[in-house]
């Protein structure tokens, strides 16, 4: 009987990771991995620790307990310069775009190249023009400041910046939050194009079910610690999109369907 092919080794992994901020626990004993080439979506209610999880994986935060692994090696065992060098393999699209206010769009997109490479100026200009084209922005956008851009344009510039160094893995933190439905779908489409054209691994944090349906290969749902018993796992779901929408767990059903009924009962009882 033919056996299933072995799963590729994970490129990112959390093992028994917990994280607290000032005594307030946000993550408790989280373990999962990210496989090369997949589009993994993290969902969950606001404040359940999705963004914290992403930053832990990207090495922007350190866990209070547990370990983060890159390519099978723990982050804690790496030298600072090695972490710095390896982190350049990641692109990060922040929730609020996080564009540098004092720089124009061109300088934002070129930032990583200027800080970390000796790429000639002419080549940097060509790369910036190409990234702007990829995200559907005209070349004239390059000389504008972030304050002059709409929300959707800022997100696209931030995506262009995240892709400028040709990363292997891209983190998207709530990429469609605050955008209208049409712009949200444009961002979804750009994420798909990026994954397919560049063969990147994507880790997407969202609570937009439309994004989940469109881009997810695998979904993980986190639940707020405050509403879990001490023994319940914080990851309440891990599987495909179809499994997510067919799941019978009332917590998952109410989240996926956007139904406040169960939550309203909890708030009334509190």
């Amino acid at each position, binding site marked *: 009987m033919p056996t299933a092919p072995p799963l590729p080794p994970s490129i990112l992994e959390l093992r028994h990771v917990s994280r607290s901020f000032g005594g307030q626990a946000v993550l408790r004993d989280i373990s999962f991995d990210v496989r090369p080439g997949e589009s993994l979506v993290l969902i969950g209610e606001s404040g359940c620790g999705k963004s914290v999880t992403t930053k832990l994986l990207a090495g*922007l935060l350190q866990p209070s307990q547990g370990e983060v692994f890159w390519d099978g090696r723990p982050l804690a065992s790496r030298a600072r310069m090695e972490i710095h060098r390896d982190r350049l393999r990641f692109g990060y699209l922040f929730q609020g775009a996080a*564009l540098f206010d004092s720089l124009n769009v061109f300088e934002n997109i070129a*930032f990583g190249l200027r800080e*970390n490479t000796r790429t000639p100026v002419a080549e940097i200009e060509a790369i910036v023009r190409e990234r702007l084209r990829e995200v559907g922005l005209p070349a004239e956008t390059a000389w504008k400041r972030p304050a002059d851009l709409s929300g959707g344009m800022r997100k696209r510039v931030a995506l262009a910046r995240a892709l400028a160094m040709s990363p292997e893995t891209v983190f998207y933190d709530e990429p469609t939050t605050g955008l209208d439905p049409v712009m949200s779908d444009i961002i979804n489409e750009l994420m798909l194009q990026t994954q397919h054209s560049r063969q990147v691994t994507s880790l997407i944090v969202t609570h937009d079910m439309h994004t989940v349906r469109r881009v997810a290969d695998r979904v993980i749902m986190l639940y707020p610690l405050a509403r879990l018993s001490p023994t319940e796992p914080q990851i309440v779901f891990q599987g495909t999109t179809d499994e997510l929408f067919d799941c019978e767990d009332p917590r998952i059903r109410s989240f996926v369907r956007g139904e406040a009924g169960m939550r309203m009962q909890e708030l009334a009882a509190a």
Partner: protein
Amino acid sequence: MSAGTTTTHDPTPIHTLGRWTVDFITAIGDLACFTTQMLGWLVTRMPRSQVLWPAMHDVGVMSAPVVLITGLFIGMVLAVQSYDTLRMMHFESRIGSVVNASLVRELGPVLAATMLAGRVGSAIAAEIGTMKVTEQIDALRALGADPISYLVVPRFLACFLLIPMLTLLADGVGMFGGWLVSTQALGVSSFYYWHYSDTFLTAYDIVTGTLKSVFFGSAIALVACHRGFHCTAGAEGVGRAATEAFVYSFVAILALDFVLGIVLIHVYRWWWFVPVTVM
């Protein structure tokens, strides 16, 4: 009280004092670590000119007008306040020495630094604090830049190099202001104004005043950047960071002025073999 039970009490003044002490020592230690990291980056990687020149422009060029006004009024007020007392002793012709020595040794460096702590320090803390709450500092790290190297080193260099120059500017304009009021309004002879200035104001005074401003500038940059990096969320957090940057910088300026004053007096006495009489 049964074993294993704990009771909570309202914190007593001793508890509060203890917590403040621990918090203060922790903050000093954190600032020391922050400073060490900054110095490490300073000697290993100089900032690009595209980053350094704007910082120098903000600190130096944009602060010049307010420093000029500050210095001018310091000199004029010193002249006005000193004249009557000197006149009682028939020493009004020596007003130049009083005004200019006070200006160069103390008031110029301290008041210029205080003004710059408010203007430059608060702006730095607000800018970096805003970057922190909008995840721009995380974005720097994600793009391969060290936030201390990119944000702190240029501002430190700008303050370290330019605040002494601004202090000298304030001193010069203050001398002019003192001369203007003394000679034009108070009737002091211009000749004697500069003669007694020259007699009592030494190169050592100018050097020590400038040296103090180097320390003041460094303190302003480090405290302001440190407050920005530790900014809490929201507009309130940014506002608090800017306020703390000024207040803590001001306290640091006063403390450094006191310590440096003692040290420099001893250096002077040791260098010129003046016998120690006090302190």
